């Protein structure tokens, strides 16, 4: 390493530290302060460490609401992501492998899904008439609908890189279309599937606005909505709010740390024929 590389490396590390680590540190420090001290919102060392006390306060708030919120968010995320992977891969496979006149139309819908912003009020009408408003299953379907276009595009470009000879070899071996998909194609989609799982599960777990619109009700709370517990019109308990943020941030962070290598592999795969 030359001296120049060393210096630019240090500068880059410092810049990343300011951008990524500082906010996290601020959240952590504020979460450890007393209520009064947190009110000032300054980047200072807590004079009195109250980490455990704040932690217990957040957990116990509103009759252990955070546990229910974790449960709801986990159910929504796991089911929505599972179905997204399944449907996204299937649609991507059919669109890529079976050329027909319908493909243009399907592709048009996929692009429309990316470009047209969702309208909240009509969506609520539709949910109400279907009896899905204020239900977890309705929320799951909404998350699938919002994520499907991106997922299909990702899978489709990846499937294009899987040689068609493999499908044909499986056909000659006697595989039915579903067997080709589940036993040959889907296992080969592992890198892009990991990408979809990470990207979508973080997006859905962290989603604040959609549960706010489509999933009102005390028993339907998701983790991001618990942040409202400590935020009032006239005063906010910043120490508890930041402790809550800390708790809510941890699951996506763990997912990201474990899978971030595969995300890049999936994102760039299919870009160049290899």
């Amino acid at each position: 390493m030359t001296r120049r590389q060393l210096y630019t490396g240090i500068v880059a590390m410092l810049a990343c530290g300011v951008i990524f680590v500082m906010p996290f540190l601020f959240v952590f420090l504020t979460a450890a302060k007393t209520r009064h001290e947190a009110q000032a919102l300054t980047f200072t060392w807590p004079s009195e460490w109250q980490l455990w006390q704040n932690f217990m306060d957040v957990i116990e708030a509103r009759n252990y609401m955070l546990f229910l919120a974790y449960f709801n968010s986990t159910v929504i995320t796991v089911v929505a992501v599972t179905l997204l992977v399944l449907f996204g891969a299937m649609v991507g496979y059919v669109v890529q492998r079976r050329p027909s006149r319908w493909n243009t139309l399907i592709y048009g819908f996929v692009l429309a899904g990316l470009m047209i912003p969702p309208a909240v009020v009509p969506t609520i009408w539709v949910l109400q008439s279907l009896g899905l408003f204020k239900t977890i299953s309705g929320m799951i379907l909404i998350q699938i609908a919002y994520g499907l276009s991106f997922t299909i595009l990702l899978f489709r470009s990846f499937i294009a890189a899987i040689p068609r000879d493999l499908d044909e070899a499986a056909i000659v071996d006697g595989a039915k279309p579903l067997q080709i998909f589940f036993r040959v194609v889907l296992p080969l989609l592992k890198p892009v599937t990991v990408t979809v799982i990470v990207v979508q599960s973080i997006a859905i777990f962290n989603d604040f606005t959609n549960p706010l619109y489509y999933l009102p009700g005390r028993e339907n709370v998701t983790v991001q909505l618990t942040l409202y517990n400590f935020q009032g019109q006239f005063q906010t308990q910043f120490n508890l709010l930041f402790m809550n943020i800390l708790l809510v941030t941890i699951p996506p962070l763990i997912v990201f740390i474990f899978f971030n290598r595969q995300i890049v592999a999936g994102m760039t795969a299919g870009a160049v024929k290899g």
Partner: protein
Amino acid sequence: MTSVVLQDVRKSFGSLDVIKGIDLTIEAGEFCVFVGPSGCGKSTLLRMISGLETSTSGKMFIDGKDVTAAEPSERGIAMVFQSYALYPHLTVAENIGFGLSLARRPKAEIADKVKQTAETLQLAHLLDRKPKALSGGQRQRVAIGRAIIRNPKVFLFDEPLSNLDASLRSQMRIELTELHAKLGATMIYVTHDQVEAMTMADKIVVLNGGKIEQVGSPMTLYNQPATPFVAGFIGSPKTNLFEGETAAQEGCRIYGIRPEHLTLSTTDGKWKGAVRYVERLGADAIVYLDVPGLPSLVVRTDGDRRLEIGEKLFASPVAGKEVRFQ
């Protein structure tokens, strides 16, 4: 007994006719090679026999059964692809046994058959490896193993050796011929390499522009080509073909003589010409002669013969080896 029968089989992609009416009978146990230049439809014809491509019209029988509309898996065929098409996420054993596991056969039976097949192909020590950890020749053998285990009536090979290097290719040629002798199954083999066609085939089918030019044993095609195309395609270097006055003097429309059926002399002969270029192949030398009145005359001669550019030489055809097309 016949194994594969094609009756006026045709294939069009839109308005483009790729296969223009093929009638062909392949006997049981025969090693039949489809050969022809790129784009002549040989791979399409093989894919039609496999069922991966449907025929636009015509009938197709395998083992006496009409399979024109049958699914690939119902035809009793197995196919080896040019790219091998091994499933990258499965081990060698799983690749070979994939068809059986799709058919939900008992695990013990699959393991048994995979082991037998692997021993036939000397793959037994590689069964737990993934395809990416195999060499080209080993992958080729796994692909063949996947075909053998299905115990098909007809094996289909789509240019299986074209991805291998030259020495491995000649070794695999011998292995495939031995395998054919051992299994006694019907094999249909597509290649553009006429050396593979000549060395392996019982019967060669020469295709050109979606039609059959000639069907016959390798030596029949070599000695008695039915058309100028076959005369030019089979054999290397290409047969010297002459039209016009030269052919008229011989009493035909097109006159052909192979480079190896011409003798060179310094004193007398039929055609006199100057040496334009010499290609030395070791055992042989290929001599290009400029003869007045002829396009170019190619002669195969001894590798050791002393030749100089511009030297005047006489070339004469070996009697009885000429071919004349009316």
